[in-house]
């Protein structure tokens, strides 16, 4: 294997961080192993990268070798009778749902974008708007194959090599590289979901609605207006969705067609959405977002119920192509915290007020309901998550950095956790605090076993475990 002579400048999804790397696109397991051997010889680090949709440095390794896994994107087996699908790690969620839905199945857990790859989804152990019910994607992995930097190929399932199963999923790509993944799909009886939309007037109502709504729904998600203060602090809108039962949809074959799911490329049938981000950019500041949020909130005051396709409900982030560009030259970062249900209201009241006091409010806040899971580097709690997008500029970096460190302190005190598909500023000390020394020691021991020469090393790993 010949690594390209030149560096490729790679970025995080938010365009707020970049690092040069030798980009290699392997097509086979053997080629991945060749890269490991080369890296060892040259003293370089290696990290795998899927679609590059993470907001931080998990898929970057400055000056090292980045494995672009998108070349290994074949769905190798699909059984529409049992719902078991086997695919290579570069396969995207988009490929996955488009394969299974026409047969009456849907991926049990999906992220807010369908552009992510399975390998990336497993490494971060992603969750969806149904985390409280279906857990993380790892809980639906029946088996996977991976290659370790030693060259060993391992097959893992909850029964076989269970320690590796529960650590490589959530392991941030630092133990080995997935080469084949088998997932159990979920049976559906319609291409549509029933969605309730209801307003919530403050944070207490917001979290109560998530908590109370979760048991009666398959999905639940909240939009939180991070700019509204005072008595309206934490106001927003809840969307709760349910699968349709058998018979509720008179023509499921039709609604499950991919063509009836995909997001239209134009608004009102004429305006191309690829241009939309240019028109949103001028509103991406404190005043503009106040206007947008207020209008959105007023529009949400009418409680209503409607039917929506799976793709339209789940992949909101894909609705506006290249939406991350609206944040301008400095890009954006995301700060997501997971806090137990008992302490979330107090912690986030403090967080939201602090952001408003600093005049650095998030322009988009999203809440979800969560439950714990068994994976080693888990980010889950029995509680809620709040994800906040922040615009980065040359003038706000220092202040925003200081504020996020304060957020970390508040969240840790509330017994909260963080998620490494998202957070970019978490320090090693913070990570140690929420993972706990025992978990970190266990992870490092596995790391030593799987990767004795320390070849797999992302910038995130150096930041958190380095």
């Amino acid at each position, binding site marked *: 294997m010949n690594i390209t002579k*030149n*560096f*490729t*400048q790679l970025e*995080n999804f*938010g365009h*707020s*961080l*970049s*690092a*040069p790397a030798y980009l290699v696109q392997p097509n086979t397991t053997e080629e991945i192993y060749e890269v490991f051997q080369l890296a060892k010889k040259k*003293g*370089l*680090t290696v990290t795998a990268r899927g679609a590059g949709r993470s907001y*931080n*440095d998990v898929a970057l*390794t*400055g*000056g*090292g070798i980045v494995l672009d896994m998108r070349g290994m994107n074949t769905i190798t087996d699909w059984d529409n009778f049992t719902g078991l699908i086997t695919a290579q790690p570069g396969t995207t969620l988009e490929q996955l749902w488009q394969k299974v839905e026409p047969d009456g199945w849907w991926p049990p857990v999906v992220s807010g974008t369908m552009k992510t790859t399975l390998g990336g989804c497993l490494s971060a152990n992603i969750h969806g708007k149904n985390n409280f019910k279906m857990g993380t994607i790892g809980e639906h992995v029946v088996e996977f194959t991976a290659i370790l930097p030693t060259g060993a190929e391992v097959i893992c399932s909850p029964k076989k090599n269970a320690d590796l199963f529960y650590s490589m999923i959530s392991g941030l790509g630092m133990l080995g590289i997935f080469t084949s993944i088998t997932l159990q799909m979920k049976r559906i009886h319609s291409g549509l979901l029933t969605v309730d939309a209801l307003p919530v007037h403050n944070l207490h109502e917001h979290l109560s609605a998530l908590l109370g709504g979760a048991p009666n729904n398959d999905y639940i998600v909240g939009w939180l207006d991070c700019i509204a203060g005072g008595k309206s602090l934490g106001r927003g809108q809840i969307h709760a969705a349910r699968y349709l039962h058998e018979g509720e949809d008179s023509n499921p074959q039709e609604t499950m067609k991919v063509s009836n799911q995909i997001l239209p490329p134009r608004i009102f049938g004429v305006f191309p959405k690829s241009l939309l981000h240019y028109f949103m950019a001028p509103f991406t500041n404190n005043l503009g977002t106040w206007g947008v949020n207020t209008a959105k909130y007023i529009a949400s005051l009418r409680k209503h119920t409607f039917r929506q396709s799976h793709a339209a409900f789940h992949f909101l982030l894909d609705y506006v192509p290249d939406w991350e560009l609206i944040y301008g030259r400095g*890009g954006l*970062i995301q700060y997501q915290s997971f806090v137990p249900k008992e302490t979330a209201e107090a912690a986030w009241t403090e967080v939201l007020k602090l952001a408003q006091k600093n005049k650095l409010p998030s322009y988009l806040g999203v809440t979800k309901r969560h439950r714990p899971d068994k994976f080693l580097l888990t980010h889950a709690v029995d509680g809620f998550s709040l994800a906040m997008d922040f615009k*980065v500029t040359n003038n706000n*970096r*220092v202040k*925003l*950095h200081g504020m*996020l460190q304060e957020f970390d302190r508040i969240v840790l005190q509330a017994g909260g956790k963080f998620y490494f598909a998202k957070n*970019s*500023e978490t320090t090693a000390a913070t990570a140690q605090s929420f993972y706990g020394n025992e978990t970190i020691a266990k992870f490092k021991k596995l790391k030593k076993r799987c990767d004795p020469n320390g070849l797999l090393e992302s*910038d995130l790993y*150096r*930041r958190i475990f*380095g």
Partner: protein
Amino acid sequence: MSDSSKPFDQTQPRPAPATPLNPRRRGIVVGASGGIGAALSRKLAREGLTLALIDRNKNALQSLCDEINRAAGEPRALVYEHDVTQYDSVPDILRRAIADLGGLDTFVYIAGVIHFPAMDEFNFSEDHKMVEVNLLGAMAWMSAIAPLFQNAKSGQIVGISSVAGDRGRVGNPGYNASKAGLTNYLEALRNRLTRHGVNVLTVKPGFVKTTATLKNVKNLMFAVEPDIAADLIWDGMKKRKQTIYVAGIWKWIMLVIRHIPSVIFRRLSF
């Protein structure tokens, strides 16, 4: 120089990676252990850059590195032994430094030698050395750096040339030629790279109170301490200037000198 691509001490800790809110510019300083080099390296580290310090003087380099890391309270500098006339080893050291730093935003070339010839002395061997270190070494490094920054659409290249490059004087033809060459090379580089978002800064110091100057020059007109020179260079870097004189007064002096007609200039004794 077979080992030149490796840090002296493989266990030296790598600096912390950059984050969106703490971008930690990363820089390479070639010629880091000399007068201006050491002062500028200290300054850049104080300003938060993580640095790969490169020089052929291993001991001076290591103590500078230790001093910087101690002052910062964290690993902020790495060292690489390298003789700039070993042109072929440049790509390997560059790759190593980028891998160790985790990226590269700033490149500074300060390596330079000077020989003060007598008025009737013509010394090709010394001239040859000055062209090798002052010009060819810079070209070897910048030829490797330029495509990298061009590809990244960002970055800053700083070349320490000299007021001596502005005119050919009776006093030092070889040095004048090497620095004139460097000044021109940097200008051409700027014309190529500005359109790709890369800043190229030419620094033209007059007299700086370094060991070499203090020993050989009697009349140190407008001479500055290396620390002052470092501050002025950093200021130019921050403002992404194209050319700066150190100290600033040399801009006006050289404006005059550049316009002295040859018929007069060739009769002058400096």
